[in-house]
């Protein structure tokens, strides 16, 4: 995805026509949808909700692009929108008092996260691994969860994570060190 600004400084936003905007968004979809989906599914524990949030992330980004606002770096922008949608999702679930139901659904639906294997034993192992990943993430304090997923699973540099979470790269590095120490308790 090339560097892109919807409204370049000193220039007119009409420099970028709607077809270019469309191409820009679709390129970003090809490039980053998989990463964003994985981040979503780890956070919301449901294939259906993860898909919904991913879709909404791109719809919202499209709306933003159409309004000729500036996007300097598309990946952190997408993750930031996605992160906010996940927060909204949990807020909605909490107000409807459905959070438990959501987690139960996730456990039931988790069998959908199977693709090639028909071997029941393998399937059970897969379930166990998925459960363990969730346990590792849940073991961390909430403020470290996003950071660990983004850094150690998605391999996003601290500078970019800082953009997503509205903080400094220094703060992210410090939190990563603390999260590592915490994870050490699990790994030993």
């Amino acid at each position, binding site marked *: 995805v090339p560097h892109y600004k919807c409204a370049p400084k000193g220039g007119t936003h009409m420099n970028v026509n*709607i*077809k270019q905007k*469309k191409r820009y*968004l*679709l390129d970003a*979809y090809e490039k980053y*949808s*998989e990463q964003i*989906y*994985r981040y979503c*599914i*780890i956070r919301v524990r449901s294939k259906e909700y993860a*898909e919904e949030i*991913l*879709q909404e992330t*791109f*719809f919202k980004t*499209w709306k933003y692009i*159409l309004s000729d606002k500036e996007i300097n770096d598309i990946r952190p922008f997408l993750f930031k929108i996605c992160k906010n949608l996940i927060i909204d999702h949990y807020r909605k679930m909490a107000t409807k008092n459905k959070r438990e139901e959501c987690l139960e659904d996730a456990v039931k639906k988790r069998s959908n*996260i199977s*693709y090639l294997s028909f071997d029941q034993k393998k399937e059970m192992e*897969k379930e166990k*691994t*998925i459960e*363990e*990943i969730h346990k*590792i993430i849940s073991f961390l304090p909430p403020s470290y969860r996003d950071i660990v997923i983004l850094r*150690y*699973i998605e*391999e996003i540099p601290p500078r970019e994570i800082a953009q997503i979470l509205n903080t400094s790269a220094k703060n992210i590095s410090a939190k990563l060190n603390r999260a*590592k120490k915490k*994870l*050490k308790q*699990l*790994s030993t």
Partner: protein
Amino acid sequence: MENFLQNLKKAAKRHFVFSAKQKNRIRKKLNERLKHDIDSEKIEDTSSKK
């Protein structure tokens, strides 16, 4: 520790897969939305020129 993190990453990437079917389904919806918005923008543009 590094091994632990490597295993976590590998396990997550192996088990949380965004399948081609899912990707195509959402791309289709996205394309529909984009097409709709582009068409309405064109209509707006033509009517403003008139």
